[in-house]
């Protein structure tokens, strides 16, 4: 065969180059493009990012948390994301640049931050000073975009939201229940409340 007549080095170098080019085309172009085409035919909603549209306008993604500060909305977890292109200008729920605090467990900034968040949470929701606040409500998530809160967290916020909206507490609690996802297949992960969907349901309940 011709391959044998080349110098040993060249006979390795040539396949090194040709395989690189071929696998770039196959794995780097054909495979992702084919997946894109098939995925968009089968699951167009998810493939585009599970975007929620209200009256023709995109209001967010059901999978990506967004910031809520008004008392009439359920509040998400703290988020450590920063302004795009910076690392020190806070911009919670910046979905263009995911990020976490990366504070270690003995970092004073972590402990002080949680302490402040606990105080703010108690004040906001009219809780006594000895009520322990659910840990997810006072710690930043990994992505800074966590769309969920725990049921414990939602329950503590319900009276505030009901009051701000002049809704009966049972009505709010009903909506919380409706927007609670159980464990997947009854087993995997944790039960959780989707904040954006819940707040959207609250807005829509009012306008009914």
């Amino acid at each position, binding site marked *: 065969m011709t391959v044998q007549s080349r110098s040993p080095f060249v006979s390795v170098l040539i396949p090194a180059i040709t395989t690189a080019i071929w696998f770039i085309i196959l794995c780097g172009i054909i495979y992702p493009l084919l997946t894109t085409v098939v995925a968009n035919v089968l699951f167009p909603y998810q493939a585009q990012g599970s975007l929620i549209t209200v009256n023709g306008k995109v209001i967010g993604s059901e999978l990506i948390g967004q910031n809520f500060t008004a008392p009439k909305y359920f509040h998400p977890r703290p988020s450590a994301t920063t302004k795009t292109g910076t690392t020190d200008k806070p911009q919670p729920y910046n979905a263009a640049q995911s990020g976490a605090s990366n504070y270690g*467990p003995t970092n004073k900034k972590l402990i002080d931050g949680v302490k402040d968040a606990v105080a703010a949470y108690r004040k906001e929701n009219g809780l006594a000073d000895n009520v322990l606040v659910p840990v997810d409500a006072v710690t930043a998530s990994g992505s800074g975009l966590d769309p969920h809160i725990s049921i414990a967290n939602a329950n503590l916020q319900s009276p505030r939201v009901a009051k701000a909206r002049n809704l009966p507490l049972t009505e709010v609690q009903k909506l919380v229940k409706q927007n609670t996802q159980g464990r997947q297949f009854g087993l995997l992960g944790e039960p959780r409340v989707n904040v954006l969907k819940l707040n959207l349901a609250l807005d829509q309940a009012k306008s009914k």
Partner: protein
Amino acid sequence: MFLNILQLVIILLIIGFGFVVPIGKYLVKIFTDEKDTILERYTYRFLGINSQEQMTWQRYSQAIVLSNLVFVLLFYATQRLQDFLPLNPDKISPAPTPELAFNTAVSFVTNTDWQNYGGETTLSYFNQMVMITCLMFTSSATGLGAGVAVIRGLSQNGINNLGNFWVDLTRAIYRLFLPVCFILSLVYVWQGIPQTLEPAAIASTLEGVTQTIARGPVASLETIKNIGTNGGGFFSINSAHPFENPTPLTNTLEILSMLLIVPALTYTFGTMVKARRQGWVFFGVFAALFIGFLVTVFPAEQIGNPLLTQVGSDQTLSSLQSGGNFEGKEVRFGIAQTSLFVTATTAATTGSVDAMHDSLTPMGGFAALSEMLLNVVFGGKGVGLITLIMYAAVTVFLVGLMVGRTPEFLSKKIEAKEVKLVSLALLAHPFTILIGIGLALVWPKALDSLNNPDAHGFSELLYAFTSVTANNGSAFAGLNGNTPFYNTVLGLGILLGRFLAPVLPMLAVAGSLATKPRVPKTPGTMSTNTVFFGVLLLASILIVGGLTFFPALALGPISEHFELASGKTF
């Protein structure tokens, strides 16, 4: 609590009983099949590959190194030229700096996937697909090939023949990675992972703020990221990002993906060297270490951080919340799934993360670090098995010294040459890690990159150099690695960690053992396929690995553990 433990047990049972034997058998078929498929035949002809060539260890190594070199050069170029290349709908600019491009290229070529950049703010869709996704396939196929080559060497009787690298590379991708990834990608999209070439979505939130939501061809990358034990995320925050890991099911599938192939390699090994029991002994050692680390991480994370309870947060587990050390974790996964993910990703040297390792409890971080320091808790594609074989050689040598016998492994004499090569591989790992940390400690301004003070800051450094050397890629991500110093030194650490420990020396060992004739078993032969040997091997790993790194661990996570227990903050 019951459901939390149950889901972990089910996942582990799927791996142990569902994967090891079937996948192990399938791998044997892929790598020993005499016949090429039509597609493979055309590929070889078209690419100028002589698929009949049987490579010596020297030639196989040469092929790996040259192939990796070509990829590094090509993808250094595509990163630097990003501004001029297509598929950049969000106009991400400027292109990565030279040091960053070097670091990223070697990182992904070697299956490390250490990232000194945030994906959604640094790379165009072109580079995410053409560079990152492609390299995830080729680097994992390369590692798998190297592992299989070492196995072939051990199974030969007097011939220096480790197989054909190009054939291994092609078959791993054609027969295993591509078909599995394509199907799994669609499952991922069904669960919510985006797969689109559209630019970032612009949303107007309920409170009237504009939110830019980065997306892209994520699903096709996400599958091979875990199946290939690569670990580099599409987004800065990796598998914690809801678009990389939207549901507990995707989290479960990602964990299963990481442990799809690596544990099965022990079966492949046992079959190919015609010593099935040896394969099971290896599996047993892997599994024992894995379970040991899992039961270190899980309770530590579930009990949580005592300081956070003192300031008024509730970390107890109930039906209404998962509780635990929740900084840097996501509600949908909870503590149980996160703990398994942490254990799996540092075991299989994947390096994807579904929670921030920097914010783990000291014992959680200790386990993650230790798995990478030992580098033999399943380990990466092929490389984990290679490292275990290395430790097996150390074990027979040590035991041989104790009882005064010539050490033998799989009926091959382990002699001075092999022991030297093994020692080289064994020492290169701590050498790279500890020298790197030492440099960072004295280099001007290098410590400015730390995000945390005191012992935890040291852990950040230790984690970084361990992760790159073990070709893991996960991080205590508070460390800002995107500086010329870290880009360069961590990049070099990646290269040393890949080629000096263990791939090249162990290919040499395999080549050397391949040429040796088998020696017949005598009553004096120590059998290596027994539980007793498994225990010896485990002890050697813990003693050799443990003693090497204990001082560093004592300065980092262990002192932090006591600081935390005494309520100190920094």
